[in-house]
């Protein structure tokens, strides 16, 4: 689809230094919208969650949602920002049908929070991302362009607008430009968004469901020749809506821009669209013919002066943040930071933690989530957390193994049943008859049969070639379809073959 010339990624880095920047929009999980009482529930029938205020009907006025303001300030605090003692909303004026008032109520030169930072780790190295500002605004409605090839407004037959989303509180988190990441720039961008997402989850301010558009990223990328003192012209790729896409968007823009620069071309400062299918970007509106937004303080809302004591209370009441929590868990679980990084990348920290809380040892919990379960998630192309098994069930599985009720092989079969919705591990073991066989008549018979069926092997063992016993154990396991405990079988065979 993309006809852009691209330079090989490794080659880009031989000539250029990337600078990235991210603007992240987070829909807060408040019950009601930013400036009215309408519900924010996702997926309702179009235009059923609207009122005169969020439709911008003549005469209507906004009333700010106190919970949203508190959430925005808590996000600022979690990012180590300075909280303004005086803050205001502003109007950003432009014409587009999805903004019902002809302006978006946002914050301009007086945001709630400024000057924070977020440390992210990529391959054992820490990158400090400076946060420029955290501010609160309202979301726009959603346009649906009907007809036409692109799904965009140009070429469409007609357009429909759903204002259910209009007025949902949105926190915008803007980084300062991030230089110096070099080849790691795509991963740093991704790791930043992933870490931010963890923080937002820990704060409980948003569900952060990227697939529902709770978290949307605008990715800025520029390239400068290595050694250059000035940064290059940046592009802004809009609405990059998954962690993987953030990484791909940075990578693609680096490769595209390098090709343009190599050809002696000039990067146009513009917004670009990201295409999930191809991982490419294409030009949107050019900033060089950009709108003058004519920002001015919103006269319909009074300035907000967060009380210092109140802010201190909010800061004191912040939950343990993900980085601190990971440090603590690493210590508690006795694992190295790199192993913790694997858990983070796999999205398994919470799962392991919950599994430990349900009684499993940290080692067992990690083994299952990073091993068998990670493999199954990968096969099914889903996130770990999306597997139909709970941490409590994994802990139960571990306990069954520990008690000798099942062995690892039976545990995998038990897991099949759990994932198939057949119930808890204990229930699956019972219904599928997966419990390890004790020294039952059936097992004695199977041992006898194995010796009788393999007389030469039995003879070797009797003759002192103890390692040959493995073949007999295998035979017993086969006849019992894995239900026997290998150690038990081995002991029984030894007793039979080596006793005088």
């Amino acid at each position, binding site marked *: 689809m993309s006809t852009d010339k691209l330079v090989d990624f490794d080659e880009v880095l031989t000539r250029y230094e990337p600078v990235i920047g991210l603007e992240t929009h987070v829909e807060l999980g408040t019950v009601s919208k930013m400036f009215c009482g309408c519900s924010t529930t996702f997926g309702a029938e179009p235009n059923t969650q609207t009122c*005169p205020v969020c*439709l*911008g*009907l*003549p*005469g*209507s*006025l*906004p*009333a*700010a949602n106190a919970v949203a303001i508190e959430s925005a300030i808590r996000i600022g605090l979690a990012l180590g920002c300075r909280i303004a003692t005086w803050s205001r909303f502003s*109007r950003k*004026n432009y*014409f587009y*049908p999805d903004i*019902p*008032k*002809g*302006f978006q109520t946002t914050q301009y030169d007086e945001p709630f929070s400024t000057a924070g930072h977020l440390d992210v780790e990529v391959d054992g190295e820490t990158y400090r991302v400076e946060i420029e500002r955290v501010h609160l605004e309202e979301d726009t409605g959603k346009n649906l362009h009907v007809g036409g090839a692109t799904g965009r*407004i140009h070429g469409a037959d007609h*357009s429909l*607008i759903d204002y259910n989303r209009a007025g949902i509180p949105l926190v915008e988190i803007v980084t300062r430009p991030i230089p110096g990441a070099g080849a790691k720039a795509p991963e740093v961008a991704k790791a930043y968004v992933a870490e931010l997402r963890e923080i937002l989850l820990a704060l409980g301010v948003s569900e952060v469901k990227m697939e529902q558009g709770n978290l949307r990223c605008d990715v800025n990328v520029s390239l400068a020749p290595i050694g250059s003192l000035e940064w290059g012209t940046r592009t802004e790729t809009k609405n990059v809506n998954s962690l993987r896409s953030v990484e791909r968007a940075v990578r693609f823009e680096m490769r595209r821009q390098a090709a343009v620069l190599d050809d002696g071309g000039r990067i146009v400062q513009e917004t670009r669209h990201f295409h999930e299918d191809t991982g490419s970007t294409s030009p949107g509106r050019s900033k060089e013919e950009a709108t*003058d*937004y*004519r*920002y*001015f303080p919103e*006269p*319909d*809302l*009074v300035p907000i002066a967060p009380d210092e004591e109140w802010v201190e209370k909010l800061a004191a009441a912040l939950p343990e943040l993900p980085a601190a929590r990971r440090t603590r868990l690493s210590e508690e679980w006795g694992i190295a930071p790199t192993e913790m990084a694997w858990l983070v990348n796999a999205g398994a920290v919470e799962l392991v933690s919950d599994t430990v809380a349900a009684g499993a040892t940290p080692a067992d919990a990690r083994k299952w989530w990073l091993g068998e379960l990670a493999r199954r998630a990968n096969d099914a192309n889903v996130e770990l957390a999306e597997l139909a098994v709970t941490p409590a069930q994994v802990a139960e599985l571990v306990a069954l193994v520990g008690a000798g009720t099942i062995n690892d092989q039976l545990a995998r079969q038990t897991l099949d049943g759990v994932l198939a919705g057949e119930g808890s591990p204990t229930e699956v073991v019972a219904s599928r008859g997966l419990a390890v066989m004790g020294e039952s008549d059936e097992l004695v018979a199977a041992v006898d049969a194995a010796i009788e069926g393999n007389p030469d092997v039995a003879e070797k063992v009797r003759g002192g070639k103890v390692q040959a016993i493995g073949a007999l154990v295998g035979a017993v396991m086969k006849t019992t379809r894995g239900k026997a405990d290998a150690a038990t079988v081995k002991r029984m065979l030894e007793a039979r073959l080596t006793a005088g």
Partner: protein
Amino acid sequence: MSSDLTAMNVDELQAALADGTTSVDLTQAYLDRIDAADGELRAYLHVDPEAALARAAEIDAGGTRGTGLAGLPVALKDVVVTEGVPTTSGSKILEGWKPPYDATVAARLKAAGTVLLGKTNMDEFAMGSSTENSAYGVTRNPWDLDRIPGGSSGGSSAAVAGGLAPWAIGTDTGGSIRQPAALTGLVGHKPTYGSVSRYGLIAFSSSLDQAGPMARTVLDAALLHEAIGGHDPLDSTSIDAPQPVLAEAARRGAGGDLAGLRVGVVRELGGEGHTDGYEDGVLSGVGGAVSRLEAMGADVREISCPAFDLALAAYYLIAPSEASSNLARFDGVRYGLRIGDDGSRDLDEVMALTREQGFGPEVKRRIILGTYALSSGYYDAYYGQAQKVRTLISRDFSAAFEGVDVLVSPTTPTVAFPIGARVDDPIAMYAADLCTLPASLAGVPAISVPCGLSEGLPVGFQIMAPALADDRCYRVAAALEAALTADRGDRGFLDQLATRRGSAA
């Protein structure tokens, strides 16, 4: 005493309602008067007689008639959003729009049991001083049909002065209640900014707009004000404080004792060295009023407020700037007019055509002015600077109120001017608001009360008070009103017009 219900003050109508006159009778009397006179005056944009009579019958049946405001008719400026009742703000762009909700002002009047007579004409989006900017025709001044009734609340002023409503709601951004009240012989009060909810007033300039009463007497105005005022959580700029007692202040003021009241006459508003553009008749009427206050015991002195000279310039940057943003929502997408949506044009063209054909010239002038003033690179020089001037004006008020209790001035430099006289000269038109702008910019309350006639036309006297001291405006205005009424020996200022009406008929 006249038995014509439409020539009575509201306190008299309350007595009549308590005494057995039905709300239906009263409403019918006004509807008859509208029928007879509005063809000429054109005060109303929308009247629904059946709905009004049905509402009156409902009040009659409900048993509240005669208590408070129940059963009393009222007219609303068409800037006030009314559920199910067409609301245009005087603009073509909202032609046919029936709002799905009530403004807080409308809801409170409804809850008080009033009967909506209709929606009154106005300058488009409240931008104007003569009602000549209405997209629906000019309203005439009942005192002289060839003259303007003031603006932008000219429909409301003409309706009340002409006996087509006992009282009405107006809105005031730079003088749009006080100036038309002055030019038609009414009492009009602009409340402290934030003391009457703006929820449901179609916004012109958000930091200035206030709704308020326009009435035949000071007491009537106070009664209407009390019904609409007070905190409203739907308006974030609404002040969360108890409303001062206004009707009682008016009654007390009518006693005429102003001993100890310190009155400042603003030099910059028609005083020495600042008389350019002020008519002699206006200045002498105002001078007479000041003398009357003094005679009632007030301590009068002259006060200088130098920043007031800059009010006009600041206002014509701030108000258009906010308006340019407030009016952006009229894009033809969701409601009202839509032009050119025939499948051949794209969205931007349809929006542009709608706004081109939907807005009148004065509205476009102000949108362009405001858009320019907010533009990047010009913001500091225009909008930013105007806000600083606004601060200076507020400081002048604060300094003045350290020495005096109220400030007074003419409400307007001239009496009502002839229709058409200033339409081609916006600066001359803007000058009509010279005296009312400072109180608007500072957010302080100000009342206009008639103080006499000049060349047979009403002259208004403006009394300004510190923020939240609206009761002081009512008290002083009532004292002056009572003294002047006693001088004339009638029941109120409008009796002079009724006499004329009677003799003309």
